[in-house]
C-alpha cells in the first residue's frame, strides 16, 4: 500500500476520521488492523504478522489509502446512519498475565527488590455513541496459560515471556506496552525463587507519563511464610518512577472490591 505514512506523537489511541470508502490501517506491535467505512457499515479486518509472543517491530504507524483488500478475519459493524469516526482505546488484558522470567530470580530472605514488567496492551475499537469498545485486539498474539496448583484449581491467563528487569533504564518503552513496577518484599528467612509471575492486570489502570511512557499502578507483594498466601497491594495512582505530569489513560476493567481482590491476588508467584 503506497500511502502517506503518518506518525502521531501523542500515541496510537484516540478518535480518527476516515473518509467513506478509504482505508485506515494501523500497525501496532504484532497487529495490523484495518478499518474501512462504507456508508452505514464499517469493515474491520486484522492479522498478526509476528508469531505468538513476538512484538516486532517496536514502533507503530498508521496509513490511509484508497480502498484495498481486507486483511484476514473480516467483520462488519453496521449503524443506522453513516459514521465517519473510529476511536482506538488502550486497554489491559481481560485476564491476568503470567510472565515467565527468562531466568529465575531469587530474592534472599529479608530482602526487598523491585522488578519491572513490560505488559502488552489490548487495542479497543469504539465508535461514537457507544460506551464500550465494539472489538478488542491484543497488540501481541499471546498464548493461553494456566496458573494454579493443579489442572482443576487455578485460573486461565495469558502467557508472556519477560526478562524481569531490575533496573528501569534497561527497559525499552514500547507504544503497545505498559510498565508495571512490582516490589517484592521477602519477610521470611528462606529464599524466594521466582519463575513465573501472575499479574492481575484487569484490576490495573493505564497511565501516561509526561515523556509519553505508559505505566500501570505499582504492585507490592509481601512474602512472609511459604505456607501462607502472598499479601499483595495495589498502590493508587501513577508510580513515582514515572515522574510528574502523568495522567490517567484508561481505568481498570474490574474494580477491586474488598475481599475479592485479596482472593484474586492470593497467588502471584508460581
Amino acid at each position: 500500500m503506497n500511502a502517506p505514512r503518518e506518525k502521531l506523537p501523542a500515541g496510537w489511541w484516540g478518535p480518527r476520521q476516515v473518509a467513506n470508502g478509504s482505508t485506515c490501517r494501523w500497525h501496532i506491535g504484532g497487529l495490523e488492523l484495518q478499518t474501512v467505512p462504507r456508508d452505514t457499515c464499517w469493515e474491520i479486518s486484522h492479522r498478526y504478522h509476528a508469531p505468538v509472543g513476538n512484538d516486532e517491530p517496536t514502533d507503530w504507524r498508521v496509513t490511509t489509502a484508497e480502498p484495498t483488500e481486507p486483511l484476514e478475519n473480516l467483520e462488519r459493524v453496521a449503524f443506522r446512519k453513516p459514521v465517519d469516526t473510529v476511536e482506538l482505546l488502550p486497554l489491559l488484558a481481560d485476564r491476568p498475565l503470567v510472565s515467565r522470567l527468562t531466568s529465575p530470580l531469587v530474592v534472599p530472605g529479608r530482602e526487598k527488590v523491585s522488578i519491572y514488567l513490560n505488559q502488552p496492551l489490548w487495542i479497543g475499537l469504539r465508535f461514537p455513541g457507544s460506551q464500550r469498545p465494539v472489538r478488542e485486539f491484543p497488540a501481541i498474539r499471546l498464548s493461553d496459560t494456566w496458573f494454579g496448583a493443579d489442572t482443576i484449581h487455578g485460573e486461565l491467563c495469558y502467557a508472556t515471556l519477560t526478562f524481569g528487569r531490575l533496573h528501569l533504564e534497561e527497559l525499552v518503552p514500547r507504544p503497545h506496552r505498559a510498565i508495571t513496577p512490582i516490589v517484592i518484599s521477602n519477610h521470611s528467612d528462606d529464599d524466594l525463587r521466582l519463575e513465573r509471575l501472575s499479574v492481575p492486570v484487569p484490576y490495573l489502570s493505564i497511565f501516561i507519563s509526561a515523556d509519553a511512557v505508559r505505566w500501570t499502578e505499582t504492585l507490592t507483594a509481601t512474602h512472609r511464610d511459604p505456607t501462607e498466601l502472598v499479601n499483595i497491594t495495589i498502590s493508587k495512582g501513577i508510580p513515582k518512577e514515572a515522574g510528574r505530569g502523568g495522567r490517567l489513560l484508561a481505568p481498570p476493567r474490574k474494580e477491586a472490591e474488598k475481599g475479592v481482590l485479596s482472593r484474586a491476588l492470593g497467588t502471584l508467584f508460581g
Partner: protein
Amino acid sequence: MNLQHWRDLMLAAVTPEKVYAILWALFFIIVGLVAANIAAGLTSRLLSRRLSSHQVSFGRRGVYYGILMLFVFSALSELGLNLGVLLGAAGVLSVAIGFASQTSASNLISGLFLVLENPFSVDDWIKVGDTYGVVLSIDLLSTKVRTFDNLQVRIPNETLIKTEVTTLTKFPLRRVDLQLGVAYKEDLEKVRRILMELADGHPRCLEEPGPLFIFKGFGSSSIDLQFSVWTRTENWFDLKNELYLSVKRLFDANDIEIPFPHLSLYTGAVTEPFPVRFAQDGKGAGDEPSEAREPAEEDPAGDEPTQATRRS
C-alpha cells in the same frame, strides 16, 4: 325416593360438627399450600447459590411436597380418618406397585441418586459406553443426551448409575493427545523440536501445563510417539484437528517420513524370482495387459530379472 327424601338424608348426615371439621380440613389444606409454596421458594433461593439447578429443583420439590403432605394428613385427621389404617394401606399398595414396576422404581431411585451425586449437569458433554453427547435433561426415569450427529439418546438412569460415565467438560482444561509415528531413520531430537515449536507457536496450546513428548516404543513399522498439549476444554476438538493437520504439513516440509505398515515377502531360497513386467512411460502396466514385452528389449536392467524394478 323423591327429592324430599334425599334432602332429609343429607340434613341428617351433615351435622354442624361435620361441617366444622370439613372447614378446618379445608383451612389446613389452604394453609399447607401457602406454607409449602413459601418454604419451597425460600429453599430454592437458599440452595441456588451453592447447588446445581437440578439439585435445587429436587430440594424445592422435596420441601413442597413434604410440607403439603403434613398438612393433608392433619386435614384428614380432622375429618376423622384413621391415619394408621391409611398408611398401612399405602404401605401394602407401594409394595405391590414396587413389585409390578421394579425397573421404573429402580430408575426413579437412580435418578434421585444422580441428582444428589451430580456427576454431570445439563449441557455437559458425557460419554456413556459408545455414546458421546450433550446432556439435554436429567429426568426422574432417564437422562436425555443429544449426540454430535444430532440424535437424541434416552439413557435409563439405572444404566448411568451402574456403568462408567465420563464427563468430558467437568474441568476447565483438557489434554490433546496426538498419536504419531515416524520412520526409524528420523532424528527424534529434530522431531521433538518441531513439535515443541508447533505448540509454542499456537496461541491455544497452553504454555503451562507444558506440552509432553512421550516415546511410546519401537512399533512394527514406525517409532511410536505421543505428543500431548493442554488446552481449554472448549478448544479441544478444534485444536486436535488443527494440530494433526499442522503436524502433517510440518513433517512434509521437513522431510520427516510418516510411515505406513510395511510388509516384506519372503519367498524362500528355492522360490523362483518374481516375474517383472515393464511398462512404457505414461502407460500403466495394467493398461495393456496383453502387451507385456520382454524386459531385455526395453531396459538394460532386464538382464537381471531377479532385481525387481518398478517404474511408473
